[in-house]
């Protein structure tokens, strides 16, 4: 099979478009690269959506944790401790078992005029179940980052805001929130990188791969098993993740520049990329 054929057959294999059967027998290098790349679609999907939704929830959690009332502070603290203090791996297993226990119910509702049929069975699939776990996990980690930044907003800035007659929502939106983001952004970039890397764990999370539509590691381990040669598929996964990391750094670096565009150039914080760590 030539490379062009491999791309045609397998480029979108992980979302169910293209050749049904996975390559057997003599497996070419191109097939491995294309199929693993196709699996990366799922890693990107899970990481991007969890990060997007998680951002808003994390800001909410951080504000709740910083609030004076124990009614909002305690639940936020517990949520953050629960998801930061336990291994993501165990969270995946637990969530899967919990979702399987859900009663089978189908719900029909209308969203923007389109009738949608939702089923509880979806929770036991990776695209929703694993996404929820990753969402909660990244929310907890990011909330801790935002909480730290929220507490280190310079007092002078807040006093100046008071002096200008800003209060409540206006003060938060114009002063507190932008400064928090500015302070938290380098750490949040690392968090985003970790999150994308922890999508690799989804493969082991007991969420089944439906019709062999798996993520990058699913195909990599398939090839490693078929060829008894880990030296090709796993480095391919590694290269893909390095490329993904570079994309994240570029994107978040651009946001970082935008957040700090009002500062003199020597006072702008640089993004320091720390090595990734497992959760």
């Amino acid at each position: 099979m030539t490379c062009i054929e491999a791309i045609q057959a397998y480029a979108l294999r992980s979302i169910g478009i293209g050749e049904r059967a996975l390559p057997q027998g003599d497996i070419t290098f191109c097939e491995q690269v294309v199929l693993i790349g196709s699996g990366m679609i799922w890693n990107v999907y899970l990481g991007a959506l969890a990060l997007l939704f998680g951002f808003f929830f994390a800001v909410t959690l951080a504000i709740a944790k910083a609030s004076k009332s124990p009614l909002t502070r305690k639940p936020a603290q517990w949520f953050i401790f629960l998801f930061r203090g336990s291994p993501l791996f165990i969270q995946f297993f637990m969530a899967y078992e919990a979702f399987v226990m859900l009663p089978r119910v189908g719900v029909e509702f209308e969203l923007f005029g389109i009738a949608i049929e939702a089923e509880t069975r979806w929770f036991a699939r990776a695209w929703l179940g694993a996404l929820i776990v990753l969402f909660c996990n990244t929310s907890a980690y990011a909330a801790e980052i935002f909480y730290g930044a929220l507490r280190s907003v310079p007092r002078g800035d807040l006093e100046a805001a008071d002096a200008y007659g800003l209060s409540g929502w206006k003060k938060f939106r114009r002063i507190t929130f932008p400064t928090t983001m500015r302070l938290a952004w380098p750490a949040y970039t690392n968090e985003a990188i970790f999150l994308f890397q922890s999508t690799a764990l989804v493969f082991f999370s007991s969420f089944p791969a439906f019709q062999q539509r798996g993520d990058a590691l699913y195909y990599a381990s398939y090839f490693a098993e078929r060829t008894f040669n880990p030296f090709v598929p796993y480095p391919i996964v590694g290269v893909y993740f390095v490329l993904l990391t570079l994309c994240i750094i570029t994107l978040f670096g651009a946001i970082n520049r935008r957040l700090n565009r009002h500062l003199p150039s020597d006072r702008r914080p640089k993004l320091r990329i720390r090595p990734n760590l497992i959760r």
Partner: protein
Amino acid sequence: MFSFCEDPSTLETFRWFACYLTNGVHMLFYQSFLVVFALLAVAAPLALTFGFLAATASRSRIAPARWVGKGYTSMVRGIPDIVFFLFFVLVLDQGIEYIRHLITCPDWDEPIRQGANFLVCDQARTPQGNAPQWIHETYNFALAVFTYAIVFGAFCGNVLYGAMNAVPRPQMETAAAYGMSGRQIFWRVLVPQMWIYALPGLSNIWMILIKATPLLFLLGIEDIVYWAREIGGSRNSRFAYPHPDWRFWYFLGLLIFYLGFTKVSEIVLSRLTRRLSRGQASAAGAAA
């Protein structure tokens, strides 16, 4: 365990659970917690050693040693560790067999990679095919520990390298002025002082190491995750203790175990930080 456990089907709830939670497989389950502690006890010092060597190599004056050190510590950037975990175990396994193969069977003329197969001569199989079960298990565990040590050693290397650079330069210059040799400066001035700078990073790595222990399951070790899945699955009436799918509750137990472990570590590490910053010229230390 208890004398009334003869016929579990006749017991009332409390006694049934007392018997169920102390039967043979549960004892194995409790023992597997020791596997986790054993892993931490062996892998943590080993990783620290690797990290120390890597950090020292990265500061070396000899260029190749520097390249090796920097290459090792920066390999963990960008690539998920889980890929390393899967990769290294296979690589170590095949590497050991290959080296033994070269030594023990020099006149083997068939290729080792035959298409999809990795073939070495029988004497080079590690462990030997007829070895007892416990040797196989210990060998797998040792491979897993070594993999953890390599991956976490790279993290430690990063932290220790930063800590060595954080020790104030005048300290070393003063030591040099007193006529200490390079080796003396390193062991008597730099190393004793770097720990306080390394501690925040190292405690972070410790927390992460704790949370990475369930991955032992992926390396084929019969650890707590393995037993939780094994015991928790539903048992029909053919078994002595029939029950529906209880895996959720077993994982909940593991979750609580890890939360508790993290909490205890947090407390111990914060004490250690306070102890180590005593007498340091930092905001936390008393000496000015």
